[in-house]
């Protein structure tokens, strides 16, 4: 019982001592407060202050503390930049005080704004007032303004536009034609230090770029039956017709020569259609007999590289549907068509000459007969 009493008393005593001699819990901090100097102005002084333009250079040195800067005409109405794409002026320095929006400046006496002019240099942002540099320091430092930085970065400004100092008239089409620069003939650069003749040229450089496919290996000469040794053979093999037929077919397929592929790209369908249209425009069947109008003829023609047909190469390959007389009339009409419209050359791609060097044309007048 006594022990508890002691304990309680000790604790209470400790608390009292702690409260008396102070502790961090009960320590009262003394707040600092800002003291700002106030100048009392009379109404006359206030009116006089705003009736006269404030010199740009510096405020009156009588001010002990920097008053809110009176907005100058340049600050309130900056000359708009003449170029829309001019860069946005950077954020004003922290020391620049905010203008008082409540004060409406009297701009009646302000000189009219100059006309927008195109300057050679990008307008610089307005410099901070000189008073910032000349104002005497305050007794208490002015609180720093929070940096006015947007949370979202602005897009990068467009690049400057270079504007020529003088207006250059738009060039006329005739002016746009720049005469080709005439390069004085000069001797080709020397490419070698010694003369190399064809005889000394390596043989490999004279080889053709493309070579034809070599023909298949010639079939081996079959041995003469009389000289062949009489080898004993199975009678069943000798009389097997199926095996003989297959072997013959294989031998025939292998013996077919492989011709060289024509060079150049094949003709497109539009090119073929163009040729067909050109020929049919000259295929006049108006003078053909009724029997010739029932006769289909096929002719072959060899072409020159300029697209003209070789007259003497035209020949009839086939005819059907009429007598020999009708076939001859139909063939002559077809030949006239080929020669007449090909007089100045058909519009054929020269790079595909191998593909149209020989043309077979079938003239079928069935649709014309029904007209």
């Amino acid at each position, binding site marked *: 019982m006594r022990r508890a009493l002691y304990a309680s008393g000790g604790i209470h005593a400790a608390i009292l001592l702690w409260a008396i001699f102070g502790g961090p819990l009960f320590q009262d901090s003394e707040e600092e407060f800002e003291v700002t100097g106030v100048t009392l102005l009379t109404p006359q002084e206030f009116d006089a202050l705003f009736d006269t333009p404030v010199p740009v250079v510096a405020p009156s040195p009588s001010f002990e503390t920097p008053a809110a800067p009176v907005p100058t005409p340049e600050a309130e109405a900056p000359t708009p930049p003449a170029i829309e794409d001019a860069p946005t002026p950077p954020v004003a320095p922290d020391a620049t005080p905010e203008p008082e929006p409540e004060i409406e400046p009297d701009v009646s006496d302000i000189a009219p704004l100059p006309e927008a002019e195109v300057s050679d240099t990008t307008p610089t942002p307005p410099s901070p007032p000189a008073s910032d540099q000349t104002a005497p320091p305050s007794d208490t430092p002015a609180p720093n303004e929070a940096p006015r930085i947007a949370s979202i970065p602005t897009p990068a400004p467009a690049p400057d536009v270079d504007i020529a100092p003088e207006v250059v008239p738009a060039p006329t089409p005739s002016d746009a034609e720049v005469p080709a620069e005439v390069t004085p003939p000069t001797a080709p650069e020397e490419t070698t230090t010694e003369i190399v003749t064809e005889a000394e040229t390596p043989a490999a450089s004279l080889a053709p770029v493309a070579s034809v496919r070599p023909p298949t290996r010639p079939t081996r000469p079959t041995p003469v039956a009389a000289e062949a040794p009489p080898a004993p053979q199975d009678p*069943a093999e000798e009389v*097997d017709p199926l*095996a003989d037929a*297959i*072997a013959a077919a*294989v031998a025939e*397929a292998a013996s*077919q020569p*492989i*011709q060289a*592929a*024509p060079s150049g790209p*094949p*003709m497109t369908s539009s090119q*073929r259609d163009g*040729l*067909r249209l050109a*020929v*049919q*425009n*000259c*295929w*006049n*069947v*108006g*003078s*053909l*007999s*009724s*029997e*010739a109008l029932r006769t289909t003829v096929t002719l*072959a023609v060899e072409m020159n590289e300029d697209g003209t047909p070789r*007259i003497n190469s*035209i020949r009839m390959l086939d005819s059907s549907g009429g007598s020999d007389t*009708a076939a*001859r*009339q139909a063939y*002559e009409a*077809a*030949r*006239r*068509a080929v*020669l*007449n419209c090909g*007089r100045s050359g058909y519009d054929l791609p020269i790079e595909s000459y191998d*593909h*149209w*060097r*020989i*043309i*077979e*044309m*079938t*003239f*079928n*007048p*069935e*649709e*014309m007969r029904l*007209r």
Partner: protein
Amino acid sequence: MTRFLRLITLALPLVLTSVFAGPVLAQSNPGPLRIEITEGVIEPLPFALPQFIAGNGANDAASDISRVIAADLIGTGLFREIPRSAHISPVTSFDSPVQYNDWQAINAQALITGSVTMEGGQMVVRFRLFDVFSEEPLGSGLQFVGSPENWRRMAHNVADQVYERITGEGGYFDTRVVFVAEEGPKNARLKRIALMDYDGANVQFLTDSRSIVLAPRFSPSGDRILYTSYETGFPRVYVMDLATVQRRPLDDLDGNMSFAPRFSPDGQSVVYSSEAGGNTDIYLMNLRTGQRTRLTDSPSIETAPSFSPDGTQIVFESDRSGTQQIYIMSVNGGEARRISRNDGRYGTPVWSPRGDLIAFTNQQGGRFHIGVMRTDGSEERLLTSSFLDEGPTWAPNGRVIMFTRETAGADGAPAIYSVDISGRNLQRVSTPGMASDPAWSPLLR
């Protein structure tokens, strides 16, 4: 099993060759470029015809012959003459070489050169035909010799040769047409049988105008004509020899009406219509024996018979179905089959000299048409249309049809027209006056 394996062994290379080598071969050997032309143009073929070179005393003839040749070719609608003012190189000699480039430059596809000379009182006409773009002659040169009075026939002969060499069909320029020449008002019309060249030249009248005459028809040889005359008061068929202009009745059946005659292809028989007892049927008469055969026996009206070129069939018109239609029967008569199937009434059928088509007159919707159809009635085409078109007749090449066209009204007058069987090139034939009922002769010889 062994045999099977061996077959596989042998067949494998073949299969591999077919699979792999085939495309390679096809690709490496594409062959010539092949195109098919199915569309063309239908235009007159341009030709150049420099005036024929004239010998002594043949200047006018050379000019006239050149003009007739050009007119013949142009009149077909298949040819177009290039004006001589466009010619580049003049032809100064019949044997001078052809400057093909000059003729190609003016797009002349055919060139006709020729000469006219007088030799021993005879006129000699020579000509050559060239395929300009093939740069070679079309056939060999020809010459015609005749009396100067026959210069038109020689010109027609040249035109026939040119036409035949280019078209492949026989010409029809050296032909004549027999027709009914008419004059006077419509209610008192005077009619005569007349003969002229196919182009309207050299008109000759074979009968006088005292009686009505109808439907003259040429014999296959062109030396005789058949026609119908009312000189006895009723229609009767007569045969006339053109050389002597002598005529005689076809038969001795007085009192019976006979009309619409035509010669058989061999010229030995005549098929015609005859009325007896109020019924009109078709009869066949052998001109050598005078034997008369009745081919139809129907209470209806059968008339306008026409032989097939081979002489085995006869096409005619009949109203046995209630309206006029076209039928075909054997030359011996018997069962007839109807070939006209479309609307309207069909009459005056005429078999083409080529045997493939039948020309006819069709009436429907208040208008008359000349048309053609195949011998089975298929592929019917109406070529003309007017107030009154009737009576077709074939050119000897079976390509052109002449017919009668009469205008409407009290002042209406008949005239002869020609048309291509394609329906193109409708032209009026030059005649001295009103004309009707043309009949085309065969080629003259």
